[in-house]
């Protein structure tokens, strides 16, 4: 039975700031998002930095609107919309990165948002490791995840990395197991 957003939030809230690999599927995707950016962030009074590498931030925003989720404290680092979104209609809480191959720029935008939210706690959501794996070699992606997680650890932030069940290469899965503090699964209620 799939995990509810509240259940996910409860599990996350029990942890100190850490790096969590979250295994998701199509049918648990939005519950996972809701669990992190709404239930968990609210519970812990955190800002959310949503790295959208799979789906344009605008689509996520549209869904969050339908779910009536408050977006006051949600920021997006979007690496898929550069060519589609002109700077004129870009919402203020969205930062664009030219492409998913510019992993350093994704880190820099996260760094910027953390600096701006000084003093407040943050949760960073990477959606998803598999989307980044389409555009990057597993060596550079491992390096990116490693540095990102270490930076965030030093800043006492939570990071949740979406990993789509059955899609990761063995290399990516091993790396995730190695760099993340633990793995949670949206599909199973108890573990």
């Amino acid at each position, binding site marked *: 039975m799939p995990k509810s957003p509240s259940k996910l939030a409860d599990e996350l809230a029990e942890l100190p700031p850490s790096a969590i690999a979250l295994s998701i599927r199509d049918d648990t995707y939005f519950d996972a998002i809701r669990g992190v950016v709404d239930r968990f962030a609210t519970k812990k009074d955190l800002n959310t930095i949503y790295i959208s590498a799979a789906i344009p931030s605008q689509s996520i925003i549209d869904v969050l609107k339908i779910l009536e989720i408050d977006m006051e404290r949600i920021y997006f680092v979007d690496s898929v919309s550069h060519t589609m979104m002109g700077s004129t209609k870009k919402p203020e809480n969205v930062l664009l990165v*030219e*492409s998913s*191959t*510019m*992993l*350093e*720029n994704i*880190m*820099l*935008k996260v*760094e*910027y948002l953390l*600096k*701006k939210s000084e003093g407040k706690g943050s949760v960073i959501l990477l959606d998803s490791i598999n989307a980044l794996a389409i555009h*990057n*070699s597993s*060596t*550079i992606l491992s*390096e*990116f995840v490693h*540095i990102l997680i270490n*930076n965030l650890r030093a800043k006492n932030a939570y990071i949740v990395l979406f990993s789509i069940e059955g899609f990761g290469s063995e290399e990516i899965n091993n790396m995730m197991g190695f760099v993340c503090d633990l793995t949670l699964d949206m599909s199973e209620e108890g573990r």
Partner: protein
Amino acid sequence: MPPDDEGAEVDDLERARCPTGIEGLDNILNGGIPRGNTILFTGSCGTGKTTLSLEFLVHGALAGENCLFVSVTEASEKLMRNVIPYDFFDENLIKKGKLVFVDMPVIYRRLGMTAMELTLEDVETLVKALGDLVDELSIKRLVIDSVTSVCYRLKTEEKIRNFILKVGKTLSDRGCTSLLISEISPSAERYSLYGVEEAIADGIVLMGNLERRGDLLRTLQVVKMRGTNHSRAKYVLDLTPAGILLVPLLKGGSGGGT
């Protein structure tokens, strides 16, 4: 308070630092530029040299140090209009004289240096004028943007060597930490146009553009820095209203080349 001799020992081991205020750069330098050092900031156009040096001065001024920007290439008024509107910038720094801008052409004119090529004597006069200015205003941080433009008017290696050596000495004698901006072409094999500047400076920071699979990244690398150990790795930077941010360049096993 440790006893005096112990303090002196610590000083010997670890020279006092001048924090740049740019968190990423201070981390690379283990706390900042050793005080009194003259650093060459070198790079091709648009790599962020002016922006970085200005941020260095603004942080110094905010920390209560008097800072001087000597603008050689463009009028400081025009420069101010193009500056990134930093969140932490405060107009009062300029009004209170903590952050001072001087245009080099004005200094040339005051000193009566009208000839295109300056003499060795002119070099002496110019360096003395800068030293006097630093004394008069109690300047602790200074930027010359760019030193390459000054060198254009010196022409010979002897005069350039003389100028850089004397400027460096004059400023470090006064405890002033200085950034000399140097312009090079992207393909240059060395760090300064004349090759002299880089040998004399206490430190070299190289700023550049890196093309990787069609993406263009701004990079920064500390090549040398006397008086401290430091990372020599390449970093990627972003110029933001919250200041310059740095992250390590990902190598991806390929060396990150073009």
